[in-house]
């Protein structure tokens, strides 16, 4: 179970709305490398993880991703506050607005709804952890691309925080993978037969 803390993990205080920026940042809400996918991926995978240290890592990183989903939601919420019809049309936010107004809906930057097809949970610790390492790099590169497109320091600051977290999570999943590998037969160097599912 979870207990909610009524705060953001890192402050989001955006002075100037900008729906065009919000549209780009939607990628990290419900996109293929986004925070909803990350939370769903790790919180699902933890159930079958073979070692309590790996379970702990998936549990706590998955939980942190929910806090990141909240931060991305806060960024989009503040970038789309008090929009005029002219701003909505000019910014390209109109296609989202027509269905969702300024509500938060987990879709990617193109408006494609979130899909569990963007994640994997295989029941195999090695397959899952390699997926997780790749997922953290993909989330990192999405934040790098957002930083190439967004110039408002109020937006860049929390985005930089989120980018940095992907790097830390990659490190922790790398350690979790080492733990998984250390439990294999020493002759099984290339980890082709993990036997965790027996």
């Amino acid at each position, binding site marked *: 179970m979870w207990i909610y803390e*009524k*705060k953001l993990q890192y402050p989001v205080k955006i002075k100037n709305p900008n729906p065009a920026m919000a549209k780009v940042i939607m990628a990290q809400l419900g996109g293929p490398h986004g925070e909803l996918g990350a939370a769903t991926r790790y919180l699902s995978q933890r159930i079958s993880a073979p070692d309590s240290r790996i379970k702990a890592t998936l549990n706590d*990183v998955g939980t942190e991703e929910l806090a990141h989903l909240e931060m991305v939601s*806060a960024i989009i919420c503040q970038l789309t506050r*008090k929009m005029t019809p002219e701003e909505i049309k000019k910014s390209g936010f109109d296609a989202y607005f027509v269905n969702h107004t300024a509500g938060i809906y987990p879709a990617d930057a193109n408006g494609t709804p979130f899909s569990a097809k963007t994640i994997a949970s295989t029941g195999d610790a090695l397959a899952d952890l390699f997926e997780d390492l790749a997922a953290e790099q993909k989330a990192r590169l999405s934040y790098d691309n957002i930083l190439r497109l967004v110039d408002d320091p109020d937006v860049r600051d929390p985005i930089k925080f989120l980018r940095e977290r992907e790097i830390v999570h990659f490190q922790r999943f790398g*350690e979790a993978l080492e733990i998984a590998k250390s439990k294999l037969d020493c002759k099984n160097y290339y980890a082709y037969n993990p036997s965790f599912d027996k």
Partner: protein
Amino acid sequence: MNGAKEKLMREIQILGFAIVETNLFLNTHPDCEKAVAFLNDLIEKKNEKTAEYEAKYGHVTAAGGRYRQSFDWAKSLWPWEYGFGTDEAEVNG
């Protein structure tokens, strides 16, 4: 403006972040005594700051401290509410 409230919430956020970071490190290094001592110190500091915040300004978790008369949890602003014309200093950051 309520600068003191914002400052205290920022201190809680900083301690909370340090706790998450140490927690994640310890998940893969559970026998690191130095990190355990570091975490214990952070938990104590965060509990103190949170108790101070809840006594002065309202609940951080729904079942945090004792409630006075009304259920402030459902009356205070939510953390994503910034710049909507409500008292911006009320926002927890």
